[in-house]
């Protein structure tokens, strides 16, 4: 799959051999430019997703129904902010600058996971996000703990660990609702209905429509196909839904004894493409909220810079006077 130009570079050959032998790549190692670019795009998109992902859940912090849940939710959203910063740092080891990445997000040039363009109208959505969205994220990310780029792989180890915790919390919220009053059960079922298909689409388009996958797989940036991961998620999640006593909103869902997997229906890809294009229920709201925070805070960041500069000048003046 190499083209004439890169094939002539012996470093490239060595790199490919190293990676295909499951060797890790570190920031100071030589790497092909396309590998660097692909990673920066993937890691920064992941960072943006964590930052934007604070909003749908943050929406319920002030209204969480018990102090215990409130504290857990704040800690979770705080973890997401931490993941975002951690991932921006990983991308910076590849020569990208956080300010540039954030600017690209604010200008609408960078992508983030489309799942965060859906709203959280009820408390049950907080449970559903933890259970399903974090569940899908973990399914996607666990293999990335062995991805070829070292800093990214190590970030993923930490992220996955915390997200498993979040997923359990989310499932516990759902369980409480599912064991609760009729109103709570209804709330839980409706949230599952809202999030099921969007979560299945988090794994990306079907393999036959996913052109970039092959090279990413070769580079071990990606380690399983979209459809493989989607199937794994469905197989894991269906029994959990059954345990909750909730129904998955897919009439085609059925255990396939022969395959040893669940068969399931086709997600509404048209809707997915609309959301990716910017036409989801909350795309504009999410970006506008981020921009507003950024713009409203400009004077604060300027003050911090000005103050640091003053301190530097004073220290300099003092050391010259000495």
């Amino acid at each position, binding site marked *: 799959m190499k083209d004439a130009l890169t094939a002539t570079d012996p470093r490239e050959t060595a790199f490919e051999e190293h990676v295909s032998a499951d060797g890790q790549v570190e920031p100071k190692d030589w790497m092909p430019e396309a590998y660097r670019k692909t990673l920066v795009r993937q890691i920064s998109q992941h960072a943006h997703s964590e930052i934007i992902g604070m909003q749908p859940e943050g929406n319920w912090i002030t*209204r969480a129904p018990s*102090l215990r849940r409130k504290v857990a939710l*704040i800690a979770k959203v*705080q973890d997401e902010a931490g993941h975002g910063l951690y991932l921006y740092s990983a991308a910076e080891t590849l020569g990208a600058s956080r300010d540039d990445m954030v600017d690209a997000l604010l200008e609408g040039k960078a992508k983030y996971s489309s799942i965060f363009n859906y709203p959280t109208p009820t408390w049950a959505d907080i449970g559903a996000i933890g259970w399903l969205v974090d569940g899908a994220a973990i399914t996607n990310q666990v293999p990335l703990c062995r991805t070829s780029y070292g800093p990214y792989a190590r970030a993923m180890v930490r992220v996955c660990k915390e997200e498993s915790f979040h997923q359990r919390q989310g499932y516990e919220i759902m369980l409480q609702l599912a064991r*609760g*009053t009729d109103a709570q059960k209804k709330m839980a079922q409706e949230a599952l209905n809202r999030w099921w298909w969007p979560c299945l689409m988090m794994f990306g388009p079907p393999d036959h429509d996913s052109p970039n996958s092959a090279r990413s797989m070769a580079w071990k940036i990606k380690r399983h196909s979209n459809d493989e991961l989607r199937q794994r998620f469905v197989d894991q999640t269906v029994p959990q839904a059954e345990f909750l006593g909730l129904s998955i909103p897919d009439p085609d869902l059925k255990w396939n004894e022969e395959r040893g997997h669940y068969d399931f229906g086709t997600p509404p890809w048209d809707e997915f493409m609309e959301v990716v294009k910017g036409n989801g229920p909350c795309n504009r709201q999410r970006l506008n909220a981020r921009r507003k925070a950024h713009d409203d805070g400009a004077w604060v960041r*300027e003050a911090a810079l000005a103050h640091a500069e003053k301190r530097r000048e004073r220290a300099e003046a003092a050391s010259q006077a000495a």
Partner: protein
Amino acid sequence: AADVVAYALRLGDDSLILGQRLSEWCAKSPEMELDIALMNLSLDLFGRARTLLSHAAALENEGRDEDSIAFLRDIGDFRNVLLVEQPNGDFAETIVRQVLFDCFDLPFQEALAASADETLAAVAAKAVKESAYHLRFSANWLIRLGDGTEESHRRAQAALDALAPYAHELFETDALEDRLIKAGVAVDRAALRPRFDERLAAILKEATLTLPGTEWRPTGGRRGEHSEALGFLLAEMQWMQRAYPDSEW
């Protein structure tokens, strides 16, 4: 015990309401690092609130718990000082509110750690370290804002002018607290004033800000006389428990 219940409610409400205000900043603050820091403060305060309100519920022994106390009282039953319920305003207002609270809270927790009430003493022992960090955070930011740009100085001074009068209520005492001071349970707030004044003056000096001279000393929180802003905070905070009564979450 009724005195200790009332005292734990006062302290618990201070933490609860300030924690709630801080949590409103989530995903809205000037920097991602600040989002994390403000959530940290809010988590510490909610942590204290939970222990204190549970302690009050246990001593009272009337079937309430931390959640029914937090979510099922109306405005007149809250006992927090007015300072902590003041709206977030801009970042300068939030930081000034926090500096005023932290300058009081650190010596307060230090003193409360010696309380004859074991739970209060334990909460305070844990809180001392948190409060030291809170104060470092808020003081450093106030210094940055005060000694930053012209705009940040102007905003910080305006926030200080607006909020400084609310600090007086932190040092108010009454018959109830006097009894508890004698019993070795409560902290003598008035005795903390010199340390508060000194610490605040040092921070303001470095921040090039001036404490406003005012005779206005708003008060009433301990008697349940709150500002209108608290009503909206409660409507939001209590929504779920009110809309779905008798549910477990």
